[in-house]
């Protein structure tokens, strides 16, 4: 019984198959690309709004399309691209498509863009802002997962394929299906953002009022991504801080100034100041005994520019409040550039500053801002985020405004406490710590760092609640819902996109074919199960005893094995001689001049492995009588025979290990192939060792009835093949173009690299290019990203080149695509 089980394990195929898993393990362990089937990422939608009947942005928000690259744009697809690509290509026709989607990847760390890139990014935003399309347009920050979508899509498009490959691709190729998640960001009709009004009251009848106004929403072409830290996060913060500073004067009746102060955070400022207009309408309807002296609108005062500006629609008269405050600010901050900028109101277009809404209704108002012009691109950009805020600048500006307003409402002398120019001591109403750095920092974190577009209901509501909560600590706060009249706001500023790798429907048919075939095999086995099992049992029970009866005559067996051994030995030697001599004729002289091949030659058809077998077969008669001698002979011949192979194996291991470290294998299946070959190489040597030591495999082995002369005959051949196939792998390197100055020609070198990481003499090819220098330069520069090396003359070049220049002249391909596709996405 044990014998039978042993027999079972003796079969080399069993060991092969049982241990074959190892290779899989190694390959799977070193897998480079994840095989994710489904991934989710956040994408932010292009803005969508209407102002006075004009429609802007992307009309749709649903995505359920197959992802394609920008080059193959068609209907009902989702074009996937990067912002850089969008900048370089003309895509006007894409926006005209009626159904489909666009997904644009932008860098995830916008703050870290270089200055050049920032300019480019602004241009990109500018381009998007003019877009008006029916497509749903999404922008997504690049994460590892989402980048792989892009890489996949580009990979698929750019491979030049044969017809068969295309056919396979169309049946079994992966495509990526992008689907937008459930959109709960849609706005309902009942949704209304609110104005928040904080009031510091003087408790005197008929006291004049000064209002501070800032809109609190943020906006850009991609509303879901725009933190709007400066415009108008800094306004929110400034108003809160002013409220906190000024409320102290209203605490006690003795210090209370004879002015009412209003702090108004208005909604939907980016939608033509809807909240401001709404507040003015309500205010004018209200009681008449309140007189608005001045509305000071604050926007974008947190960024360091060259100064601070007061924007007004016309030059204020000398006696007006605005002029008074202007003079005061000048006096308080003599070192700061502080200018008045006037700009006429255009009634037909969108108001450029918030104060214009007041001026239209004949109420005095100005805007304070560090921006010199309302068209400053930073007002509506994604780049306007918290890292752009200069806290010291913001504190200084808030302080200046607070001082000026305080001076006015407490009616202090305009030029300071003394008109005498000899008195130079500074005088302020506020203590040094009145404008609290900690508090401002906290407000910025809370209000100026997160997107709060008016289209995002959740964000807007939480902003309203937070501002109201913060303001209610210092004053009475009221809220009023704003009706948006001449504009329309749309929701869904962000969405969860799901990318799924799917197969075409035809592939399902292929699978079902496979299933049918499998079941057919199963059916066949089931029908014949009984018979085949019985035959197997019979074999086990009957054949073995039959053979053992044949082999009773010991001497005869020895005779046979000795003869067999002699014949085999002759055959080995012949094969070895022939293989050495005629390697080229047998088509085996591959890459003989490749230095790897010369260094590690394989062992031709190593007949050395035949020796142990020979020794054992010849000496089996003397085994019993002189065991020590026998062992000695076997051991010697074994070690002689095995040493070179073991050494080769070690070398191969090292080579492959180094190659993996250098990422020599660009694709997994190549690595798989090499490791499989290595594995077989190892198992053959291992089996041979077993054979030599215990004589396990040689007796009576047959395969389909034919005797297997292996390991001694077949294995050396296999060893040779595996050895060569491991060494044979070359890696294609990026080509280099040499510009020969004296000859005025170009040589292109297609480099191949051996597994030892040296340029291969055999496989590398150098061509002369046919094109004119100027043309070549431009085309090739693009192809090779500037990998053009200048040499003086041909002689110098020949010293550099690893191989000879081929006589054939190579045409420069005019295809715009680089031959070496590199899909690493670099935003740096």
């Amino acid at each position, binding site marked *: 019984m044990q014998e039978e089980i042993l027999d079972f394990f003796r079969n080399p195929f069993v060991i092969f198959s049982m241990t074959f898993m190892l290779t899989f393990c190694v390959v799977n362990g070193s897998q480079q690309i994840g095989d994710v089937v489904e991934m989710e990422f956040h994408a932010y939608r292009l803005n969508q709004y209407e102002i006075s009947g004009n429609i802007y942005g992307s009309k749709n928000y649903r995505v359920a399309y197959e992802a394609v690259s920008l080059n193959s744009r068609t209907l009902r697809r989702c074009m996937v691209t990067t912002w850089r690509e969008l900048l370089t290509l003309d895509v006007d026709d894409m926006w005209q498509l009626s159904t489909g989607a666009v997904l644009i990847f932008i860098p995830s760390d916008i703050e870290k863009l270089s200055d050049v890139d920032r300019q480019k990014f602004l241009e990109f935003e500018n381009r998007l802002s003019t877009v008006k399309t029916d497509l749903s347009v999404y922008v997504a920050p690049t994460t590892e997962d989402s980048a792989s979508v892009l890489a996949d899509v580009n990979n698929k498009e750019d491979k030049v394929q044969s017809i068969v490959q295309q056919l396979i691709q169309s049946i079994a190729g992966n495509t990526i*299906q992008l689907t937008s998640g459930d959109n709960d960001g849609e706005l309902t009709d009942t949704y209304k953002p609110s104005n928040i009004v904080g009031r510091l009251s003087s408790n005197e009848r008929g006291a004049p009022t000064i209002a501070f106004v800032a809109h609190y929403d943020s906006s850009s072409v991609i509303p879901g991504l725009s933190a709007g830290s400066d415009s108008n996060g800094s306004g929110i913060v400034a108003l809160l801080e002013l409220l906190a500073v000024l409320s102290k004067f209203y605490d006690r009746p003795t210090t209370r100034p004879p002015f009412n102060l209003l702090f108004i955070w208005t909604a939907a400022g980016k939608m033509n100041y809807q909240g401001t207009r709404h507040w003015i309408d309500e205010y004018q309807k209200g009681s008449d005994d309140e007189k608005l002296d001045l509305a000071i609108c604050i926007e974008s005062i947190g960024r360091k520019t060259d100064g601070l500006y007061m924007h007004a629609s016309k030059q204020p008269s000398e006696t007006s409040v605005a002029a008074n405050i202007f003079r005061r600010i000048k006096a308080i901050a003599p070192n700061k550039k502080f200018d008045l900028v006037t700009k006429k109101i255009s009634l037909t277009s969108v108001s450029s500053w918030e104060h214009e809404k007041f001026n239209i209704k004949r109420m005095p108002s100005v805007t304070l801002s560090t921006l010199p012009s309302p068209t400053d691109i930073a007002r509506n950009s994604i780049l306007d985020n918290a890292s752009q805020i200069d806290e010291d600048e913001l504190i200084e500006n808030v302080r200046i405004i607070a001082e000026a307003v305080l001076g006015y409402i407490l009616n202090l002398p305009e030029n300071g406490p003394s008109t005498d120019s000899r008195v130079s001591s500074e005088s302020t109403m506020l203590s040094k710590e009145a404008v609290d750095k900690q508090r401002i920092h906290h407000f910025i974190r809370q209000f100026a760092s997160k997107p709060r577009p008016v289209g995002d209901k959740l964000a807007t509501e939480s902003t309203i609640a937070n501002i109201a909560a913060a303001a209610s600590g210092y004053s009475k706060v009221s809220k009023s819902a704003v009706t948006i009249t001449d504009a329309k706001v749309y929701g869904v500023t962000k969405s969860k996109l799901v990318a799924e*790798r799917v197969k075409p429907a035809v592939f399902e048919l292929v699978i079902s074919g496979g299933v049918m075939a499998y079941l057919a095999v*199963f059916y066949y086995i089931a029908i014949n199960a*009984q018979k085949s099992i019985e035959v197997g049992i019979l074999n086990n029970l009957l054949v073995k005893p039959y053979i053992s009866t044949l082999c009773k005559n010991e001497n005869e067996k020895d005779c046979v094995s000795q003869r067999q051994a002699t014949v085999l030995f002759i055959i080995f030697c012949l094969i070895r001689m022939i293989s050495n001599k005629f390697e080229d004729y047998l088509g085996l002289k591959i890459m003989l001049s490749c230095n790897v091949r010369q260094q590690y030659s394989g062992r031709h058809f190593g007949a050395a492995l035949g020796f142990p077998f020979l020794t054992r077969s010849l000496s089996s008669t003397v085994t019993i009588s002189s065991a020590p001698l026998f062992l000695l002979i076997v051991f010697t011949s074994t070690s002689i025979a095995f040493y070179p192979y073991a050494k080769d194996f070690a070398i191969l291991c090292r080579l492959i290990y180094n190659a993996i470290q250098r990422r020599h294998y660009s694709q997994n299946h190549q690595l798989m192939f090499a490791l499989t070959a290595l594995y077989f190489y190892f198992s053959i040597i291992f089996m041979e060792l077993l054979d030599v030591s215990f004589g396990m495999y040689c007796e009576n082995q047959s395969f389909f009835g034919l005797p297997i002369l292996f390991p001694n005959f077949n294995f050396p051949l296999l060893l040779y093949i595996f050895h060569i196939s491991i060494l044979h792998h070359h890696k294609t390197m990026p080509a280099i173009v040499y510009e020969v100055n004296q000859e005025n020609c170009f040589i292109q070198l297609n480099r191949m690299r051996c597994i030892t990481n040296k340029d291969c003499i055999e496989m590398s090819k150098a061509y002369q290019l046919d094109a004119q220098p100027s043309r070549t330069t431009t085309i090739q520069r693009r192809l090779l990203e500037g990998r053009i090396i200048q040499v003086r003359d041909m002689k110098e070049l020949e010293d550099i080149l690893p191989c000879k220049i081929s006589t054939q002249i190579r045409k420069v391909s005019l295809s715009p695509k680089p031959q070496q596709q590199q899909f690493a996405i670099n935003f740096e």
Partner: protein
Amino acid sequence: MTFFHFINCFALSFAPYFIVYKYSGINEYSSIWKCATASGGYLLTQLVKLLILATFFPTSDVEGFAIVPEFLKNCADIMDVIGLHLLMTNFLAGKGEVRFLVGGIGWGFAHSIAHRAILLWVGARASAFTWRWVQTSLDSSFDLLLILSMAALTWMLTRSSNKLIIVPVLALCIFSTFIYQTVQNVLLITSWSILVFRAIYSISVASMTVLVYSVNRSSNSVKKYD
């Protein structure tokens, strides 16, 4: 990926059981009702197993894979053998070979349904394509081999004089889940590789069973003729 994929996977999972029952000649010796009985036996045994697991192996806090607790947990699978034995001795009739084949098929079918039907219904209809469901379905045929072997070995266990050969092979059957998990976690292999491993494992266990069976039968027959 669509309903069609589900149908494919479904066929791949469960058709082998049908084929084995219909075309290997068992249906001539036994009715389908017996198979259903075996399925019922499977469900009862699983219930008992669950109770045992819940009583003696409460959920551990250890995250990931730990060999010893997993092994102990897997010991509960010995209940399968007891269940199979009771089933074959008390509820199935006929020749011994027929008993363990019918028991094995019914048992395996119930096992396959319990392990795959819901998974496939939920997973295979999703739109993203993954080979996972095809692999799960292919596993089903390898499980069939293992369970048939287990049934045969259980049947032999009480009837053979040479228990020494049977027990290790039976252990290989019982602890197959544990071995799969160990291989998967220790060698960190996944998808196709683990499937190939399962295929090789179950086929080798099945052939060992045939070997054991043949030895057993011959020794029996030798006894008879003596």
